């Protein structure tokens, strides 16, 4: 049993930092919310609508997810193709989207790598690419599983600023992380701990 009879309300505009021992179920919880895993019982509601009645494609329009191992979600032959894929597949590619992708490449310091195969990228570069990918989609919520574990100093500063912008525009973020340096630079985070199969809210620990 990983999670048991636990409830929590995540609201837009907040950054939730979810901590807990290795193996406590943080990634599992993230995957359940994303729809990648089914719970044995209980319910998930998005704006009071039962998640079970929402098609996976529609859920993906609301929530962006970054895997702990970004290589699991990157599959296109080039960096540019990775960012262009959702628009190509939905027949939405046009000049304004191309400009949006170029902007994103610049913003995430991936412009020089745009024609490279993601397979030739370092782990940290792949993390940046995964972030760039979800930032292009107008999602309401982000679930980020160890998004900074391999980022360099510049990448971490950028991630912090990206998270602040996202939440100040009303987006909600669930951040699963053990990165002390990044966490200490994010203000007003809501600290949650997964302990003994339950989500527990922690009063400001003062650690971050």
């Amino acid at each position, binding site marked *: 049993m990983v999670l048991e009879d636990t409830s929590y309300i995540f609201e837009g505009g907040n950054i939730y930092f979810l*901590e*807990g*021992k*290795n*193996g*406590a179920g*943080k*990634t599992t919880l993230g995957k359940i919310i994303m729809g990648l895993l089914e719970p044995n019982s209980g319910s998930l509601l998005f704006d009071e609508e039962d998640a079970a009645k929402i098609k996976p494609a529609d859920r993906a329009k609301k929530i962006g997810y970054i895997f*702990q*191992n970004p*290589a699991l979600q990157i599959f296109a032959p080039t960096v540019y193709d990775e960012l262009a894929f959702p628009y190509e597949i939905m027949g939405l590619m046009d000049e304004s989207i191309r400009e949006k992708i170029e902007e994103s490449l610049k913003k995430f310091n991936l412009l020089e790598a745009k024609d490279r195969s993601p397979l*030739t*990228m*370092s*782990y*940290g*570069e792949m993390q*940046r690419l995964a972030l760039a990918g979800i930032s292009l989609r107008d999602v309401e919520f982000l679930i980020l599983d*160890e998004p900074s*574990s*391999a*980022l*360099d*100093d*510049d*990448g*971490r500063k950028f991630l912090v600023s990206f998270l602040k912008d996202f939440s100040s525009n009303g987006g909600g973020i669930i951040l699963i992380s*053990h*990165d*002390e*340096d990044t966490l200490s630079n994010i203000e007003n985070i809501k600290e949650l701990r997964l302990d003994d199969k339950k989500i527990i809210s922690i009063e400001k620990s003062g650690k971050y």
Partner: protein
Amino acid sequence: MLIVKDLTLKYGEKTIFENLSFKLEKGQILAIKGKNGSGKTSLCLIVAGLLKNEENTQISGDVFYDGKNVYGLTVFEKCIEVGLVFQNPDNQIFSPLVIEEIVFAPENLAIVREEMERRLENTLRLCGIEHLKSKKTSELSGGEKQLLALAGVLSMQPKLLIVDEITSRIDFENKEKVRRVLSDYAKMGNSVIMVTHSEKDLVLADKLLIIGDKNN
């Protein structure tokens, strides 16, 4: 002692780093920092003798352990000289069970059974994963896999231990444990190379190498 001399790495036309030189004495910890894509992981692979000259990979320069060129060592010699914990533990964990993952190397190095069992118990305890002893590796979380990968490498007792972002996914309690393990391992007379972006990890280091823009 580890000596790296005039090491240059190119992938195709792109120079990753050039004329990199440093030494690491026994008992010392070297931390390596640098921008993403600057070649930190590639450097670890070269020092471990795992990256070779191929069609799109050009390596020049030398890496010596105690006077021996790393590329002249046999697989057996490499295993007892150097251990590498990969940045992504999924790339190195292959046994179905936790116990099998840890004893695989000692078993194949023909270590006697009693010593193998002692190393198994010792590394499980050192890495704080005794409770995972009977689990399948497929059931482990990312942080648990990082700890297992470390345990597996420590079971070989390499003289040079290389860890690539080892604390990145480990919970806060175990981070401190792992830092103590690395520090104690060096105090035992071994050398440790640690790729990290963590300020708290950097505190352990005797030396710091920053790689970036081909200048080091």
